[in-house]
């Protein structure tokens, strides 16, 4: 029995170690490549640690004013979309959480599921046609509004359980005090839902930060975001892996840091709201 237990333990930890190495190696490789000189990036055998680190790739990126602009664009796009999503989403999620039935509820829920299930390109083709007719291509507010709708299912499914969990008695007390529906929402519900709202805001920021299709098709040079810039590296004639790895690192490091903090909250958002924590 003792030996069997020992073997089981060895099995468990070797599986986990292999998994750990597999999931972290590409990230390590990206970051280490970003600190390598050009000669070291393609050295064989590969240089894992035995290279002299350089900041040249980052210097090269940041000396280009477009890159700074792109990073700022990405931050604006991300924060704008998270903010708009939370505003629109908490209103709708509150209505869904508190009302078993109301006009348009079923239609609304069907639309959310379809929006989640449909490939983005289905909407992007007609949206491109529409935006080019209306001269709305390359406008950051337009991109923010569109990505907010694309992310709406996540927003609603993540927020609804938080609103549903607020004790109804608190709202009834507010009514007795003569507060209007809006005042109850604003003064009682929102403060209580704040932990849920912040978790949703972080999750939506991750989704928007990573978004590629919307900014690459409906944006232009002036609204370029990091994923769009990164995708541009592959069409460049000479593949310059150093700066490319540096740009990729700057895209993934903020997320890797955030992931560690929000992982538990993500279950709700990622599972269509079908599972509660």
């Amino acid at each position: 029995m003792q030996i069997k237990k020992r073997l089981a333990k060895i099995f468990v930890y070797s599986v986990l170690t292999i998994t750990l190495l597999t999931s972290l190696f590409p990230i390590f490789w990206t970051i280490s490549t970003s600190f390598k000189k050009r000669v070291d990036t393609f050295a064989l055998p590969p240089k894992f640690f035995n290279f002299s680190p350089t900041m040249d790739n980052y210097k090269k990126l940041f000396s280009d004013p477009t890159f700074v602009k792109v990073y700022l664009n990405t931050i604006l796009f991300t924060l704008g979309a998270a903010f708009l999503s939370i505003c629109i989403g908490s209103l709708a999620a509150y209505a869904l959480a508190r009302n078993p039935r109301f006009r348009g509820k079923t239609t609304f829920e069907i639309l959310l599921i379809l929006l989640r299930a449909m490939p983005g390109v289905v909407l992007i083709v007609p949206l491109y046609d529409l935006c080019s007719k209306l001269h709305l291509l390359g406008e950051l507010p337009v991109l923010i509004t569109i990505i907010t709708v694309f992310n709406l299912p996540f927003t609603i499914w993540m927020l609804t359980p938080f609103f549903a969990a607020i004790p109804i008695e608190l709202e009834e007390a507010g009514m007795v005090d003569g507060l209007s529906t809006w005042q109850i929402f604003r003064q009682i519900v929102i403060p209580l839902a704040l932990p849920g709202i912040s978790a949703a805001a972080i999750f939506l920021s991750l989704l928007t930060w990573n978004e590629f299709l919307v900014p690459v098709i409906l944006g232009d040079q002036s609204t370029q975001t990091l994923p769009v810039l990164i995708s541009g590296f592959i069409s460049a004639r000479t593949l310059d892996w150093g700066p490319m790895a540096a740009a990729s690192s700057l895209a993934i490091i903020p997320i890797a840091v955030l992931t560690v903090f929000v992982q538990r909250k993500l279950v709700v958002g990622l599972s269509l709201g079908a599972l509660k924590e």
Partner: protein
Amino acid sequence: MRGARLASVGKSSRAPLAFSLPAWILIIPIFILPLGLGLYLSVFDKSLGFPQPINFVGLANFQSDVKNSNFYSAVKVTAQFMAIAVFIQIPIGIFLAMVLHSASKFASMFRSSLLIPMLLTPVAVALMWRFMFSSELGIINWVLDKMTLAQPDWLGSVTAAFFAVAIVDSWQSIPFVVLITLAGLAAMPVAPQEAAMIDGASTIQRIRYVTLPLLKPVLLVILLIRIIDSFKLFDIIFILTRGGPGTATQTLSMLDYNTAFTFLATSRAAAIGVVLALMSLPLYYLWKKVISVSS
């Protein structure tokens, strides 16, 4: 339903409608209108390449889709990626979640590091894998060489390119399966497990007859989401292969994209979009079914 007791939002029918109004104001122009416009465009012969007068062509775009071998190849490739998700990623994910669940030490450290890949920018991730996949100087082929294994031309050969995309997708998606399964395992009652142990059930028997049946609602959610997301797979393919070599990794999404933005055939792309929209309708019924099982 506790909510029904709240008079302010519950009884008057206008308040909830008013609260969902801002969402409607955005959904109508950005979701419903494009769907309608896509349907409209699909029966014309609009093309960005040739700004000529646009004619009504009826169902010709759909007919040429049906005749087009690229379309069938895209259906096949999409189905193959779905099969990888369902038959490879989900079993591996469940296995890893069970292993992780049984680990007492370092569990949260393992979990955090396992989950990072899931949320990283797919475009950046795919680009780095592209670097690692490069056939002459990439690290993957270097390792294969050291192990005296065959070194495929990862992104250049038909079969290898498919597996390259599948590997990168699995690297990002298996953590999702693990995370959700772990949540299910953590919420599972301990009593049935203990009862099975007292009855002398082996580990395999317990997994087969106790754990998996209890996990069924969670597993259905995972199945649904993996089907949806493999149907939508786009960014990784765009960076790794753009659907190539030839049409080896061209999914329906990629075909739609290439038709619209490489060949500039707006109406033909809209027709593919209509077909894709129709294909996502069954997912709605699947979703309904999953919800009814898991609640």
